[in-house]
């Protein structure tokens, strides 16, 4: 997967709802990113957290282990908006490029 795309995807699935690692992985897979690796998602979460784009909190659970939830913070939302614009621009360029090449 393109580097940087996974970052954007993770930020996107956290936009509306906080989630823990496995949960986030499942959302990505449900959305269609079936080949995303478990370790990649966890590593990405850790990196986004270390870069200050995510907050985290632990939720105790009655059955099973405690879950570490991640949430977008302000910096994360700003980054998501910025990346979304970059992506839209990139996507439209790519679309034009591919269509033109297809015609040619």
């Amino acid at each position, binding site marked *: 997967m393109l580097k940087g795309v996974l970052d954007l995807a993770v930020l996107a699935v956290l936009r509306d709802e906080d989630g823990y*690692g*496995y949960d986030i992985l499942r959302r990505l897979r449900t959305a269609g990113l079936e080949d995303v*690796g*478990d370790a*990649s998602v*966890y*590593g990405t979460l850790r*990196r986004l957290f270390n870069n200050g784009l995510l907050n985290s909190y632990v939720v*105790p659970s009655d059955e099973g282990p405690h*879950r570490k939830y991640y949430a977008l913070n302000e910096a994360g939302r700003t980054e998501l908006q910025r990346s979304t614009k970059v992506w839209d621009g990139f996507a439209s360029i790519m679309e034009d490029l591919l269509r033109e090449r297809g015609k040619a």
Partner: protein
Amino acid sequence: MNLTAQDEIAVYVEGVRLALSGLPAEIRDELLEDLPEHLAEVLAEGGGSLEDRLGPPDVYAAELSASAGLGANPAPPRTDARSRAAAKAAAHRARLAGRVRVADEFVGRLLGYPRARDFLVLLRPAWWVLRGYLAAMAVSFFVEESENSIGLLPRINGELVLGLALLAVAVIGSVWLGHRGGPAGRGKRRALKFASAVLVFFAVVGFVEADEAARRDYYEPVGYPQSKYDDVRDVFVYDRDGRLLTDVQLYDQDGRAIHFGDGYCVNAETGEVKPSRAVGYPGCANDAPFVSLTPEPSGVPAEDPSAVPSAPVVGG
């Protein structure tokens, strides 16, 4: 090898940890923080072992550290015999740690906490106070020269006030030390742990000793047998026919004369006190508790047994 889910998770985590051994411990622990929970979820899905689902631990580790922006696998695992042995030992340790974790969570649930550890953390200040008390007791014990057994409060040369002052200083010092947090140096931390272990050992020995001493005092009163005869002032000896014997001498098993009383007699009527003139017991024949049936021992055996009462009159 038949692994339980917890074991399998522990072994896999340890494999990843080993593969990340090139990273600083702090960063590595951060990366591994969510891993056991995640592996539990993956196993719960069913569909094969962790290796089947996620690939070998070192591949997982490489992907993890790469996506976390820490570069590719910084320390590829060596495969010589020594590192295999180390890996095996690490897997055992991991399995043990997994069991401890399960016990931690189980006991914690009984106590109403996420983990037993969470409850123990709350008890920390209580431990600081206890540690101060034990330290004061230990100092008192080693300073004290006498052979006294351990009591409940520290004393210095038998002085309770000094001991209490020591106790106050030790408790405050211990709480201060605990509140300040652990010492920075690894050696100092180790020394603190060692000292705590010594204190706990001292406490166990001390409490057992104090407990035994307390039980001894209750059930074996010292000096009781001697005091039984303290109020004996005179001895009256009757023969089988109920006659009071006079001028009797008493000896113990070593041939020493046994003396009771102070050698004075009180006249019951006049209240007059006179020194006894008797050679042996009774000192004061007039105070005999029982009436002598035959006034004087005749020295001659009775010719007709029926003429003599068969038993002494024993009052009571």
